[in-house]
């Protein structure tokens, strides 16, 4: 586990000690700001009875940030090591493959959470000006962050897999973007099977990432969503580990 922490520290430093990390953060911040501008213009002056987080979620900027930043964050994890050859020095130290995968994954996930931190600030700010005197409701914010953590965990795992598959960072980013967007678009499958009931509609609802997230932004934590995200994340991480280990049997 010690090796894991050492690699994690180094990877996190790779994000925070270089310009790339800040460019990603700046881009995310810009989308976040745009999202809030759109939201405030749309509900200008109206009294509304839904949590702010749900309003923001409705603007779709939430998904834009998630779909764009995670592939860019994760693309370097393995692809850069492979292309520069440091993969070999990393894989010949007395640290297991699983630990290396876990460390890199954890670093990317931590960075992903850091990227989302300004959201809380924006929410607080909007609350301050729109509802003076009413106490700030932290519960939907906390569950939203839990949702972001879970969704981020899934998308980071996808990014890890894509990065482990290739030595080109661009290809890694494009692959994880493609998988990520496809998964997201499955959310709209229910509209095409819409009226019909039965298995097809059940499946369509189950694979809908959009619906899974919706409960979190409303302040509801449902174990079904937890299981859904966690199982997919574990699957993608397992595949990543197998790809990293594949040098042994190739």
């Amino acid at each position, binding site marked *: 586990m*010690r*090796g894991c922490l*050492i*690699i994690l520290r*180094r990877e996190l430093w*790779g994000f925070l*000690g*270089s310009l790339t990390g800040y460019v990603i953060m700046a881009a995310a911040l810009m989308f976040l700001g745009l999202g809030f501008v759109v939201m405030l213009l749309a509900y200008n002056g109206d009294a509304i009875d839904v949590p702010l987080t749900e309003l923001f979620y409705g603007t779709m900027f939430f998904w834009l940030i998630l779909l764009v930043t995670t592939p860019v964050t994760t693309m370097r994890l393995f692809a850069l090591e492979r292309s*520069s*050859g*440091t*993969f*070999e*020095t*990393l*894989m*010949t*130290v*007395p*640290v297991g493959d699983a630990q290396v995968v876990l460390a890199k994954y954890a670093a990317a996930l931590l960075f992903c959470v850091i990227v989302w931190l300004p959201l809380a600030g924006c929410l607080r700010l909007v609350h301050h000006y729109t509802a003076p005197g009413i106490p700030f409701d932290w519960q939907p914010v906390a569950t939203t962050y839990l949702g972001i953590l879970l969704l981020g965990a899934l998308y980071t795992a996808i990014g890890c897999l894509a990065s482990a598959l290739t030595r080109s960072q661009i290809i890694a980013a494009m692959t994880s973007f493609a998988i990520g967007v496809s998964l997201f678009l499955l959310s709209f499958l229910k509209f095409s099977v819409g009226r019909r009931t039965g298995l097809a509609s059940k499946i369509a609802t189950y694979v809908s990432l959009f619906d899974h997230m919706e409960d979190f932004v409303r302040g509801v934590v449902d174990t079904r969503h937890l299981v859904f995200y966690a199982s997919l994340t574990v699957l993608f991480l397992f595949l990543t580990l197998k790809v990293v280990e594949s*040098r*042994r049997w*190739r």
Partner: protein
Amino acid sequence: MWSGRDQDATQSRRDAPLCLPVRASIMSKARTQPMIEVERLTKRFGRRAAIDDVSFTVAQGEIVGLLGPNGAGKSTIMRILACFMPATSGSARVAGLDVFRQSDAVRRRIGYMPENNPLYPDMRVCEYLKYRALLKGLTSRESRVRVDAVTQQCGLIEVSRQVIGSLSKGYRQRVGVADALVNEPALIILDEPTIGLDPHQIRAVRQLILELGRQHTILLSSHILPEVEMTCQRVLIMHQGRVLAADTTRNLQERLSGGMQVVAEIEAPLRELLECWEQTDEIERHDVTASDSGFFRCMLTPRAGVDLRPLVFDMVRSHGWRMRELTRSCHSLEDVFVHVTRPDREEEIV
């Protein structure tokens, strides 16, 4: 062929004395045990065999060179020994530990610098060495001591605060070697340590390797012959995945040449000269070419084991000719290499 219970049994027997608290027995055991034992090692990539049935041993404290053209399988052997990937069949042991089954223990005992010396360009030299030392299982305090030691040993003190990306290639190579040394390994594996360096840097790295050879066992690879000739005590010549010759540099030279050719530049009438060589029994073959200002250059191949030089001198003196050169040509490793790797000779020499 990772087979056999027996192998496990011998393995545990072999390890047993190492667990004893008696230091003397550890030392004597360590002396006798070879550092590297490779037996019938084969690695296939698809249908192509990168290395094919390779066996060799390296004793403690030796500097051994793997020599061969590109694609001969040098890097593959090194990667297997460094536990980067397992072999298809056969066994490899480092300090008595199986590289596949006891990979973790082996990794702690080796320092490996891969081909092209990959480093993280965004890190400072001292940061990088510290990071590598911690990864290799040193404690924070140990790593501080070791990083200081290797920084000094590899002449990196003046650049230790610099970012690796800004260093010259010679310095980067030293950082790679320092990384390999940082965990005080028993065995150092260097894949093409001098590739891409200028002559000054090559000399510096070579000097470093020779110094390291006093305390460590070193396995290095190269396709540059003088390199290996100068640094290594023993050479394994590889070609197309097989070891074609394994011996000390000196033995290899002698084995090839049989006797050594003598070159003499003599000023004499050509006919007399030729006649003279033909009548001497000790000379197996002669080859005379005209040189400048009346001299002839004679290449004389002796029958086995004869030193022709006194003979030639006597002959020149008795005829009253003039001579301006008399040397015995030593076959360089380059000749051995070309000779050994010639396709039609492969079978004979082993």
